[in-house]
């Protein structure tokens, strides 16, 4: 899966979690937490949805790589390709 498609897949997951936020102006390089109403339970939701929807496992030591949309795409693109 190309980076654009991975970004879209991650945004779809975030949209189902940060349900009250407008994602249209999200900035890829800024921390998701600083732009959206997200807490640690929400990040666990992101991890869970990656597993449910895309069979992608994110080990706990890699959670920090989900901090920004850009880091998500960088980290997850190889995993989507597997």
């Amino acid at each position, binding site marked *: 899966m190309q980076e654009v498609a991975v970004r879209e897949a991650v945004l779809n997951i975030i949209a189902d*979690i*940060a*349900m*009250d936020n407008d994602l249209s102006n999200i900035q890829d390089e800024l921390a998701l937490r600083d732009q959206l109403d997200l807490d640690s*339970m929400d990040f666990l*939701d992101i991890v*869970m949805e990656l597993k*449910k929807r895309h069979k992608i496992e994110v080990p706990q030591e890699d959670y920090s790589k989900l901090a920004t949309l850009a880091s998500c795409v960088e980290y997850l693109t190889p995993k989507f390709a597997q």
Partner: protein
Amino acid sequence: MYSSQTNCKNSHGLDRVVITGVGLTSPLGNSMPELRQNLLAGKSGIVHNEIRHMGKVAVGLCRFDETQYQTKKNRKRGTRAGAISIFCAHEALNSARISLENIDRSRVGVYLGITEHGNVETENEIHELYQNKLDTSLWSHHHNPRTVANSPAGEVTLNLGITGPHYTIGAACAAGNLGLIQGLQMLRLGEVDVALAGGISESAQTFGIFAAFASQGALGHHDDPAMATRPLDKSRNGIVVSEGGCIYVLERLENALKRNSPILAEIVGYHCNSDATDFVLPNSGRQIECMRKALAMAHVDASDIDIVSMHATGTTMGDIQECEAVGSVFSNSDKTKINCTKGFIGHAMGAAGALELAGNLPSFTDDTIHGCHGIGQLDAKCALPGLTIESLKKPCSLILNNSFGMLGINSSLIIKKFVS
């Protein structure tokens, strides 16, 4: 406006506790006036609905905006019981004209009666587990916070920023009354200044409760859902499970007068006891004792009571035994009228006692007693002299509200029209 000479202590020297607000959702409306209007109109809130594994069953469902007072994200994270509780708590505070911006939130307590909690989430998770080939790594991390027993009350505090105590009171179907009793007690102990107290239930969202009542031969059913539960009717065949919630704002009278609050009624007596005889079958003797002790606390005679709001679930034995108990206590009470609410809205479990009280509370102002629903042919064993099948006009100043539950828990509340 009330007199500054009002005595704020009762004859026991204890603080008088009053109801200053009420918020509710029920199968017959989302406010006390709406519920009242529908009860007086004789409407039914029961519908047929598909329940997982059960197919079509009669059920009482609430229709309110779950995200009127909370974000979509928090609704998804929380529970149906929490959504009901948050809605009712906001409505209750609005009704009491309390803005939390202006009061010490550490002096507000949340005390909610529940029949059970966590079954909805557990059933859903187990359903998902089987869809996921028993892969427990997909079990939701939200399961624990959603199923801990304090969850519905905790959701209220999270939503409203209340930092006083919160917990639920597990008391089967007596829980609505027990929530009010707990709130009153905490006010009298001086633990809080405002109690959000009542009962809630999300049980109608599970299949287990329906299946269990069906196995027990006690699940109400009829081709016409409006006739699926008929307390006191000769051909009644059981309970209709409903969801709902009713939360009251309770305050010490002194506080309510200070802020010139509307006062809906005063709680003047209560009692709670245990049958200690059977897991599910009621015990008339203990019910009689419960009502008499509540009357004694209120310093009133049975003949002073204007309305007895029966628990009456629509089961064969339960209704007969409660009628024996009510008939015994009120045998010489010519003016006492008796009604029951579950024929209209079903059995709202942990919310039942609190909701049914809200259905009767307007009697203090509209001088009307609502009737019963679904009684075509009255069971001779339930033919109490004061039974009010059709609404009637009568001034009212005292209500005795019964709520009983499994494992033999009985509760009676006595509510008085407030007169300064």
